């Protein structure tokens, strides 16, 4: 039970960090013109691109 509680705290802390990071990136990337982090595709990072040539 204690172990489960500890793991739960860790997961929640990770989620909190990632949510905060996401919000920070959203504001920062919008300011730099790199899209709005809304997953609509704007300001794509250019990774996973494979030329059709």
């Amino acid at each position: 039970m204690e172990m489960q509680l500890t793991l739960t705290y860790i997961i929640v802390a990770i989620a909190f960090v990632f949510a905060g990071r996401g919000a920070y990136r959203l504001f920062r990337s919008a300011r730099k013109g790199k899209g709005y982090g809304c997953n609509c595709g704007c300001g794509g990072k250019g990774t996973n691109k494979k030329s059709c040539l």
Partner: protein
Amino acid sequence: MLLSELKTGESAVITKVKGYGAFRKRLNEMGFVRGKVVKAVKNAPLNDPIEYAIMGYEISLRRQEAAFIEIVSLEEATNIVGVSGSARDAEEAFAKHWESRDKHIHVAFVGNPNAGKTTLFNYMSGSQEHVGNYGGVTVDAKSATFRFEGYEFNVVDLPGTYSISAYSNEEKYVREYIMNNAPDVVINVVDASNLERNLYLSTQLIDMDVKGVIALNMYDELERSGATFNYQEMGRMIGMPMMPTIGSKGKGIKELLREVIEVYEGRSETVRHIHINYGKEIEDSIVAIRAELKDEKDLICNMSPRFLSLMLLEGDKDVLEFVQRDHSREKLLKVVKEGVERIETTYGEKVESVITDTKYGFISGALKETYKESPVNRRRKTEYIDAIVTHKLFGFPIFLLFLFVTFFATFSLGSYPMEWIEAGVGALGEFVDNQMSAGPLKDLVVDGIIGGVGSVIVFLPNILILFLFISFMEDTGYMARAAFIMDKLMHKLGLHGKSFIPMIMGFGCNVPAIMSTRMLENRSDRILTILINPFMSCSARLPVYILLVGAFFKDYAALVLFGIYLFGILAAIVMAKLFKRVLFHKQEVPFVMELPPYRMPTLRTTIRHMWSKGEQYLKKMGGIIMFASILIWALGYFPVDKELEAQYDEKKAEITRAYKATIASGIGNVDMLKEEQEAKLESLHRQEMSERQENSYISRLGRTLEPIWTPLGFDWKAGVSLLTGVAAKEVVVSTMAVLYQGEEVMEEDDGSNAMLERRLREHGFTSVTAIIFVIFVLLYSPCFAALIAIGKEIGMKWAFFVMGYTTVLAWGVCFVIKQVLDLII
């Protein structure tokens, strides 16, 4: 790195010299050529110009001019070639290495809107940038890098423009990009089925003296029309090679890139700089202006003197400002003024018109010799379809029918795969439930993560179907027709017909829709369109609609869904009318919009478009939806009430003891007793969770805000769900799934959305509450991403305004509707 960035005392090797004509030639003559070592000796007292040492002598360059020379530091060059020693050794070794290494070509795509630039760009680079069969889809420059035949291409897709005369922001942007970044080769993408108008931009590129290749895109349409075009001959005439391409099928793209390499390497026999003859008066004026510009190095370093002269004669405001930025240059402007007066007296027309007419005359003359039109009317198919879909009587019903079919299919067809995913999510929840021992981690995984994410992921098929229809609308060319038939109505509301395109795009996602308002020339139109765009229900709100409409209006769900979207459009119309009257003065902008020929979208494009949206939706599941679900669950689970926990532990132990004793006494069926015990324990656990949630952090927050929600008939859980929806609209559903956990165990409680519907009813949700909730979601503040997009496009004060007015409006409308419905029902 640029030469202007080289620090005093440091040396570097030149890798590329950019710039135009005479300026570039002059730099080359002074020794600034690829492979040479250059040293920054010192800066002038005011930090400009800079003295450089090259080939044994000193030379001074202004910082702005030095920015046209690309370099690598000597250290870097030495590392690359692995030679240490004198600068000369490094220079020689680097020169040899440079010849054998991959070369970088900077390519910019320019062309008219809807010529297929992005389609070519996507094919070459493997990007998935948004494309559509209407002008103005690309509103920002996109870049990508790829390799082809030993060359590294850095391609930049620029927004479509009809010219580069700085009439619109896009035109200004494209012109400045070409001038400031000096791409090695410009690919001018031309719609082969509409040569005359498309080649107008090519004539401006000729004046700019840029190295270019013309891609005759959609060449299959030209061939199908029965027309013939001797493009090699045309290329020779204008001094720019032409290559036929079919972007959607990837045909001719390799050949186009090979031609780009030829042009870059200076091997193309077609390339030559020509001058379009504008007639004696204009040519004389150009000569006079060029004579004045001869010593103005800072003016002609990034712009061809001939192009600059023409722009000055045309009275281009930005160029006039550019010329006068340092000092007044009265003599130059006097020469320009004299030239303008002479030309206008001779022709009796504005210089701009004379130059435009001459350009079209030049194109027409060149086409006369190379292009033979088909005897058959090539746009017949388009005309037939247009006769129906833009008909004054049938146009609107067809459009509404199209929208209805879209939402009907989204709901009905989507419900089958939705059930399968729902079953999968339920099975996963059950599996995890059986495998893990009881405790907070199990609750987090089952109720928080699987419950939250699972409740949203099931809507993936609906989202894909919706995007299939939006994609069809965009790719066929119907989008432009929708704007055309709506222009009159939009005009009455004080909006431009083109505003309808961002509105329709808003059905997909509000962010690109907000960005696409850049296609509107008038700022008031832009702001107004952005202000009402949030009422166009984005796909992220769809899960909320489907969940509640499916649960409470099952028999006529598609119709209700259609009605919700129409209600959004109606709200947009009313607010547009109001804003136009209160905030903006009436400004008329003519409706100039191209109606492209209808095109059948390829299966590849459609699937790609759909999948890219699906991929983005799934990414959201693993990101914001999951984190929000975990946090909402945690806020609903904590703080741990030790006393409550002890009470329930005692109750659970009591039940366990009682059943143990009964089983030990041998009375009754053991299996049945065990099952009964499990059910009772589970029920107790649910009660504990429910009681714990009532004392949780989220409950405290929700109850504090309850006075806001109570008049609308929502409990604190619904209120919190709406609040979290500002992060992303899908989070409304995942929050509901996490918060609306029942007190009693229900049969087949698999955590699916069907279960969530039952839980909602159990918590007092009625059809009235459901419709009010849906309307609130439709009208209230857009998500953070959309708000930031608004802030970026038109300013943060407008973003806050949108957030405020939409929320107040949502509350007001919902309150009124509730009062009315309470009276009726």
